[in-house]
């Protein structure tokens, strides 16, 4: 039994990293822009479908462009739709992004059909490694490595570059940053684009594991929201810790009480919010109070 617990714990951690990758973009967009992006799952699906289309036409190398293209689509969406919502009633953002999610799903269905499309990992990432009772596939190790790299790189970008400082300052006091002569709308477009790029990256990496259908967003958006809520809205570190917690909790529930596995993360969220209503790393933000 101990072997199985260890095996499930490691598997849960790896799954948690995939969840972190999906959730982190949502956390960034809320933390920096104050928008609760219900369309985050839609960008996840766009990433998966772009990877599918590029892979089919040009091979896996081209599929790597999918997150970048998703990010660019995000920039356009921000410039056309999202930027009119800054400082407005949060409900407007919820409604607009929810409508956007439905629109994207309908467009994907129109273009690619409703049936799932086949998508496999590249051959060099097929196979798995066994360390005693622990089994990890090469592809999941690759996903883990990419996630860790992206998290560290983005943290370094925010912490050590002038652009990162502008984004952080803009998220706390946009007026002040604007008064310093910085073109904040461009910064915000970039932030939204980065959030969408991360969603697209999550979609591309999840595509060989999950079923690629226009409705695949539903499988991503709920864990992402749960993770962001548990971690604390807008908290980078919180999203990471919460993602891993959700992964381990889900895996352990499958081991001992499988029929509860779908509800496990929601029970975890409720328990944490009872103790810490702002989530694990949630702070009081003047802008959103």
């Amino acid at each position, binding site marked *: 039994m101990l*072997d*199985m617990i260890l*095996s*499930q714990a490691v*598997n*849960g951690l*790896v*799954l948690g990293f*995939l969840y972190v990758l999906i959730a982190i973009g949502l956390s960034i967009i809320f933390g920096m822009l104050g928008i609760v992006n219900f369309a985050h799952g839609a960008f996840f699906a766009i990433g998966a479908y772009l990877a599918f289309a590029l892979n089919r036409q040009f091979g896996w190398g081209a599929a790597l462009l999918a997150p970048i293209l998703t990010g660019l689509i995000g920039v356009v969406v921000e410039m056309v739709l999202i930027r009119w919502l800054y400082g407005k009633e949060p409900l407007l953002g919820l409604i607009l992004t929810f409508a956007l999610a439905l629109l994207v*799903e309908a467009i994907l*269905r129109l273009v690619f*059909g*409703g*049936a*799932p*499309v*086949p*998508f*496999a*990992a590249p051959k060099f990432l*097929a*196979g*798995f490694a066994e360390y005693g009772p622990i*089994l990890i*596939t090469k*592809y*999941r190790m690759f996903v883990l490595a990419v996630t860790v790299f992206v998290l560290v790189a983005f943290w370094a970008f925010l912490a050590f570059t002038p652009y990162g400082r502008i984004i952080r300052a803009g998220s706390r006091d946009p007026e002040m940053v604007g008064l310093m002569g910085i073109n904040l709308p461009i910064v915000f477009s970039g932030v939204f684009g980065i959030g969408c790029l991360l969603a697209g990256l999550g979609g591309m990496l*999840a595509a*060989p*594991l*999950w*079923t*690629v*259908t*226009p*409705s695949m967003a*539903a*499988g*991503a958006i709920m*864990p992402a929201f749960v993770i962001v809520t548990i971690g604390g809205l807008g908290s980078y570190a919180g999203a990471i810790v919460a993602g891993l917690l959700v992964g381990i909790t*889900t*895996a352990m529930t*499958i*081991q001992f009480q*499988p*029929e509860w*596995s*779908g*509800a496990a993360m929601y029970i975890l969220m409720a328990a944490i919010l009872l103790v810490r209503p702002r989530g694990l790393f949630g702070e009081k933000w003047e802008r959103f109070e």
Partner: protein
Amino acid sequence: MTETTIASGRKIGRRSLLLGSAGLAATSFGASRLGMPYIGNAAAAEPIKIGMIWAKTGSIVDQAEYLAQGSMLALEQRNKTLLGRPAEIVWLDEPNPQGAQQSAERLIGEQKVVGIVGGALSSFALAISSVAKKAKIPYIAANAATGDLTGKSCNKYTFRVQPPVDVHARILAPYCASIGKKWYLLTASYAFGQDIKKAFNDYILANGGTVVGADEVPVGTPDYSSFILKIRAAKPDVVIGGVAASDLTTFLKQWNELGMKGKIPFAEISVGNTDLWGVGPEAADGLFTITWWYKDPNNTPEEQTMAAAYEKKYSRPAADKTWMGWLGMKSLLDSIEMAKTTEPAAIVQALETWKYKRGDIDVGYRPFDHQMTGRLLVAGIHPNITDKWDYFDVKAELPKTPDDIAKAFGSQADSTCKMDAL
């Protein structure tokens, strides 16, 4: 003498009023019969509306797309006419069981449909069936497989195309038992999965085998790796699946990813062609029952015509779900023509006698439980898939004889259906 004053102030006598009314009535009658027939025929020209409830969102949407296209094709093949009148399909969504129920109520209450085809998942079909029973409108469940639909929840207005889970299980279970007698059951946590769990559990225990593990999986589970690790540790001879549509696709992709493809045989009943097409040739694996296959040489000429029309229109082969949607709708449309009326009771009676020739057997709905009886295909996966549509390697078409079919579907004495009256 009573007089009526109109707005202009002119007075109309009682006699004038009566004469005027009679004249107006006579004019209307005359116009309808003579110079202006379109006034009298307006009701007859009203299109006959058929309700269709197939998912437009959610985990079953991939199958629902084919079901809907097959259903629409059945009407298109009649040039969209029924009883000499134009006919149209009104398609509503079924996002969940409550949504399916509301859609059925809207179709009946607002659209005044004369019959409904739909219910992609068992839980949706049960919800629609309860509305059909209450509103006394014929309902064809073309895809749902739960036994309850034509078992304890049967009713006079509900008819079902898909063989129930226990029939599929009776056909596939002996194949699985011939591989090994230690089974692991991985089934969805709703009616369809629970029926599979019970049917296969009962079979293997009755035949000297064991169940080494049984997990119920929530619908829409995105990651099966933890379930697969449990299966791997339990070392079963066969894994019996009971997850539907895109959930099955996800499972098989991850089953392959974790190196299980070819290591432990996987079997599942009543899978959709699209579930496997979405898995891809690298990961597709298993032994299945399917209801129809576009390359089956035993397909009737009418089915071949349907498949050709579908491929021409949608540039892809017809799936089993296309056929089920088509056959369900065809049975309803045929029955309306047979009944020569849109009156629900007459359509129900026609459905009970409706027959469709498939090879040496007459396919139709049994009057005592409204279950369609027929054959199923047992299919594996081609070892080397070269055509992106041609995945299945059909091993058998069962049950072989009409007697075997009757036995597989069970007799009236075995049925839990207590059929109500019209």
